[in-house]
């Protein structure tokens, strides 16, 4: 660790950034005891992870807080930096000798900008002011863009201001590595910002991971809940998937992480006898979660994650049994049967062949098709007689001949989210029985290794 060339590091050699520093001469004339009048001496911050080198370096001279007084208190840059340093400790009151020295270091680093060294006569006045300045503007500085560039790159434990931009780069790096594999040192490399230390990254990563868990938990819960609503309520539960986007984003780091402990994310209420089978779904669940969370983070912290390919297809509504779309086959059959000899029909019918399946209220498109029918042949008026009877027939349980797209969507949904509860909840067959039967059929094992 390089020294500032004041106490430990030697005149100007180690202090590559401080060519202007006079060295010990100034220091000797400083009365350090007055510096920290307002600061509690003694206990070092508990959560402090100080490099002992820095401490030692500062302790060498008569005052580890050597440099604090070497500037005008009115110099905001110093204060800002000092504040940042102190902020990082979270408790300004506890600035012991260490933090003071840290302040000093931060302040000192700012000195390399070529600031003049204020004469030491001012030291005592500025001391008190420094203390107050350190304490008071702390809040105002919270939202400031990181001025970490003023500090020595990476060499001091500077308070890092996790701006949205910075956080975005962090998340990018983490994603690149993979959340679980993301190691602070690698993240640091990828981010390529000098002023961050591994420690900064590590603590931020920890917070990020815990926050993500909450997000995922909430997402899973809402997803399973909305899916259940889709299946059993028949109401378009699109909001379940879409609404998640209003969730709280990754909050500003300085505020902390609000989400209260969430109930366990899993376990949509499945029939009890399915629970044992449910367990295996977890690995894929995590995988799916990996896909889910970017959706939440994307809007707010101005992340540009592409949305994952799959999302609960909102249009997936295997029509509930009470769906009055029975007349569909009417149209479809018409097409099938009349095609050879009826040039009129295929045109009007074909586009409406499977309209209902895509709508949550399938009753509507059929009506429009009927209308179309009528329009085309209104002069004949034959159709109108057919319509009422068709609609007054007893409703069949569901619509027939679902479109390929809806089948595909339904199947895809099952394949991608195996943990979802069974829509009908039929009593499952005995595994042994199935396997036995399969063996007899000549299928030795499932899942088949060669599909």
């Amino acid at each position, binding site marked *: 660790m390089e020294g500032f060339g004041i106490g430990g590091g030697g005149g100007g050699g180690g202090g590559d950034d401080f060519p202007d520093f006079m060295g010990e001469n100034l220091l000797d004339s400083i009365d350090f005891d007055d510096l920290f009048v307002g600061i509690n001496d003694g206990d070092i911050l508990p959560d402090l992870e100080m490099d002992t080198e820095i401490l030692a370096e500062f302790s060498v001279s008569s005052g580890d807080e050597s440099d604090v007084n070497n500037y005008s208190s009115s110099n905001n840059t110093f204060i800002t930096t000092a504040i940042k340093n102190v902020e990082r400790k979270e408790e300004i009151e506890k600035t012991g000798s260490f933090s003071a020295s840290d302040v000093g270091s931060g302040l000192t680093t700012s000195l390399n900008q070529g600031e003049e060294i204020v004469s030491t006569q001012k030291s005592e006045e500025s001391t008190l002011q420094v203390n107050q300045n350190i304490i008071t503007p702390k809040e105002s500085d919270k939202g400031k863009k990181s001025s970490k560039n003023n500090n020595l790159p990476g060499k001091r434990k500077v308070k890092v201001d996790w701006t949205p931009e910075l956080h975005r780069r962090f998340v990018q790096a983490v994603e690149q590595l993979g959340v679980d594999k993301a190691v602070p040192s690698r993240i640091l490399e990828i981010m390529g910002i000098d002023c961050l230390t591994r420690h900064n990254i590590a603590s931020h990563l920890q917070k990020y991971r815990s926050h993500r868990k909450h997000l995922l938990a909430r997402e899973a819960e809402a997803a399973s809940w909305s899916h259940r609503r889709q299946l059993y309520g028949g109401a378009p539960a699109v909001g379940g998937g879409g609404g998640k986007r209003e969730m709280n984003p990754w909050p500003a780091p300085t505020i902390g992480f609000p989400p209260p402990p969430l109930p366990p994310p899993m376990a949509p209420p499945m029939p009890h006898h399915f629970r044992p*089978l449910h367990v295996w779904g977890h690995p894929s669940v995590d995988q799916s979660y990996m896909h889910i969370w970017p959706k939440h983070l994307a809007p707010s912290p101005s992340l540009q994650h592409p949305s994952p390919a799959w999302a609960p297809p909102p249009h997936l509504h295997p029509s509930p049994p009470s769906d009055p779309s029975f007349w569909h*086959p009417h149209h479809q059959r*018409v097409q099938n049967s009349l095609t050879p000899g009826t040039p*009129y029909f295929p045109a009007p019918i074909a586009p409406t062949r499977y309209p209902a399946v895509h709508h949550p209220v399938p009753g509507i498109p059929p009506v429009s098709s009927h209308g179309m029918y009528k329009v085309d042949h209104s002069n004949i008026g*034959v159709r109108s007689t057919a319509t009422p009877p068709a609609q007054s027939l007893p409703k069949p349980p569901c619509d027939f001949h679902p479109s390929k797209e809806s*089948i595909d969507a339904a199947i895809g949904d*099952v394949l991608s989210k195996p943990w979802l509860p069974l829509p009908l909840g039929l009593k499952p067959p005995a595994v042994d029985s199935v396997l036995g039967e399969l063996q007899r059929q000549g299928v030795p094992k499932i899942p088949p290794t060669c*599909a």
Partner: protein
Amino acid sequence: MGDSPASYIYMVQHLIEKCLIFHMTKEECIEALSKHANIKSVITVTVWNELEKENREFFEAYAKSHNKNRAIEAKAEVEAEVEASTMIQKLLLDHDHTKKSDRE
């Protein structure tokens, strides 16, 4: 997807249930699963049969309602056919009339 036989069977059951919701026939279901999920038909058949064994009542009702639906479908089909041919006849008649009137 499932790595164990049990989970695989579970998945196939889930898929079949989805098809049932669509009121597909067994054959349609087999085809759909084979096409969209790469499930061998023999597996689908077996699981379907086993499910039927375990849920006889359901499948009986399902078959019944399916038949009913088919009947409705057929009826509607016939109706449509009748309508269509009637319409065509009418059109032809109109056309003839127009021609005749033109000549006159």
